């Protein structure tokens, strides 16, 4: 990326709300059902069927507004956004246009210790569209299939201000937003399943210029990685176009994950006319200040507060605290281990290294993992009381993670008990030292490295089961 240009990024995030039923009808929101089995005359767009707002959707929207430091106006309403597409059977989407439920909020991202505030323009309630499945190759197939199960599921669209200046900042914003929505219990935020979706608005401008450059909107960003890559690609494309004197079009583009590039979908010139008007089928909403306070009092702990708690209570570094508060399930795991095994830094290290490694490898969520926090605590105690070494613990951990067994079970099965008995170790050390007089002499003549040779030999003789601390101590005495 050329230095003389600045990238300006704003994100539009759609979060599917965690409700049992859809936003305007009572159809189920369960994921993965038979196509068109969770549909009624309303969400299939049949004439005459009327919407009634799900009270939970409103509550979750207010909760989000509180979590994102938004104003929640006393009055809001729903509007119809008109456009034709086969995934939208009514030919309009019920959304909120000029009077959204939340506005003027912000969240804070941490960039290597530097806190940056990203403003949030608004968050509004709306209904999701159905799912279009293209048969075969999208460019050649004559048909698409429509499943309306998702049509009418409640969404919150959260729109940031164009406050981000790099792919990294955009990623940090999306990660933070995801954490907040998860902690607030608003959405499952599963990007793979589409319950958290992100579009990016990108423009570039010469450094120092106030006026924004021509903006493009990138869709189909299904992971943090594709968000980052798409922004990097698109910013580069803009800079190249400007430097080559080409004209940039304001348009919607799609991210092609396979080819790692963005492609034009449609130009905004004609399409951006949704002819919004108030939905006459839905009476407006009045949100009392008492109701907001009531919801505020019931708010769960949010990531920033949880992070502070970890730093204050356990003296953890901010870095650790930020990782432990990525999701509520992750934090709960930590909180449960720490109740039994109180050394926070040790717990944090094990979670950030081994646990994360295995979770990533197996593509598991922490809530689905067989290893329970109480069992990790028990394993850490076995290290402390000398039953197993830190190195053995890694093997034990792997087995616990895969089988869900307890540490004592694994240790017993594998015959992994650490030898800390000084008498037994002394005998082994004695024979090794006696068998290597040359090395002993080297060591006594100042060749420090020779010490490592003896440790290695003892470990070999005990198949790694000797307690390293005891071996060190005994060896030093012996070689004095």
């Amino acid at each position: 990326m050329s230095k003389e240009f600045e990238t300006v990024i704003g994100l539009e995030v759609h979060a599917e709300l965690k409700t049992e039923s859809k936003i305007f009808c009572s159809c189920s929101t369960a994921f993965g059902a038979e196509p068109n089995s969770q549909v009624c005359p309303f969400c299939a767009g049949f004439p005459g069927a009327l919407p009634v707002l799900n009270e939970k959707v409103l509550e979750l929207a207010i909760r989000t507004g509180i979590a994102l430091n938004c104003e929640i106006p006393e009055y809001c309403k729903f509007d119809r956004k008109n456009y034709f597409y086969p995934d939208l059977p009514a030919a309009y989407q019920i959304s909120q246009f000029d009077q959204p439920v939340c506005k003027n909020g912000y969240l804070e991202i941490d960039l290597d210790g530097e806190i940056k505030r990203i403003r949030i323009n608004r968050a509004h309630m709306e209904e999701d569209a159905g799912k279009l499945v293209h048969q075969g190759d999208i460019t050649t197939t004559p048909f698409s299939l429509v499943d309306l199960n998702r049509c009418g599921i409640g969404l919150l669209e959260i729109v940031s201000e164009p406050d981000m200046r790099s792919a990294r900042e955009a990623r940090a914003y999306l990660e933070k937003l995801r954490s907040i929505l998860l902690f607030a219990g608003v959405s499952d935020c599963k990007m793979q399943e589409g319950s958290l979706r992100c579009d990016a608005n990108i423009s570039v401008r010469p450094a120092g210029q106030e006026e924004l450059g021509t903006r493009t909107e990138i869709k189909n960003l299904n992971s943090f990685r594709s968000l980052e890559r798409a922004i990097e690609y698109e910013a580069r494309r803009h800079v190249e176009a400007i430097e080559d004197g080409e004209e940039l079009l304001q348009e919607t583009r799609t991210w092609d994950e396979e080819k790692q590039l963005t492609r034009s979908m449609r130009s905004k010139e004609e399409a951006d006319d949704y002819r919004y008007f108030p939905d006459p089928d839905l009476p407006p909403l009045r949100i009392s200040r008492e109701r907001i306070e009531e919801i505020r009092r019931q708010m769960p702990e949010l990531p920033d507060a949880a992070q502070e708690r970890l730093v204050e209570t356990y003296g953890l570094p901010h870095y650790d605290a930020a990782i432990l508060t990525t999701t509520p399930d992750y934090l709960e795991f930590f909180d449960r281990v720490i109740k039994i095994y109180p050394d926070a830094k040790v717990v944090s290290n094990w979670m950030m290294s081994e646990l994360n490694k295995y979770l990533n490898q197996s593509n598991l969520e922490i809530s689905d993992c067989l290893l329970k926090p109480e069992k990790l605590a028990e394993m850490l105690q076995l290290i402390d009381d000398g039953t197993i070494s830190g190195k053995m613990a890694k093997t034990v951990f792997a087995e616990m993670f895969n089988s869900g067994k307890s540490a004592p079970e694994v240790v017993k099965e594998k015959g992994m008990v650490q030898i800390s008995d000084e008498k037994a170790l002394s005998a082994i050390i004695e024979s090794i030292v006696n068998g290597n007089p040359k090395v002993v002499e080297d060591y006594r003549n100042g060749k420090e490295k020779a010490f490592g040779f003896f440790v290695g030999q003892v470990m070999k003789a005990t198949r790694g089961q000797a307690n390293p601390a005891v071996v060190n101590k005994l060896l030093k005495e012996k070689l004095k």
Partner: protein
Amino acid sequence: MALSPEEVNHVAMLARLALSEDEKTAFAEQLSLILDYVERLNELDTGEVEPLIHILPVFNVLRPDEALPGSSQEEILSNAPLVEDGQYKVPRII
């Protein structure tokens, strides 16, 4: 207020209507008449009047978040001209 041919084209495009030249001329005239009629509202001084969002003085009509069975797949698809694998089959649109 006469509607220009471009405006008629634009509205027709948004509504996905293919209009013949004759229809365009005819609709331009009719739509202009309708707009003129509605335009009469602007003769009133509404400076002191709150914008009307909804006809009835009703607010906060809500229902509990409870999932209930909807229609069956068969029922919901019974009006569809084309169906495949339990889904509506439509011409490809990108």
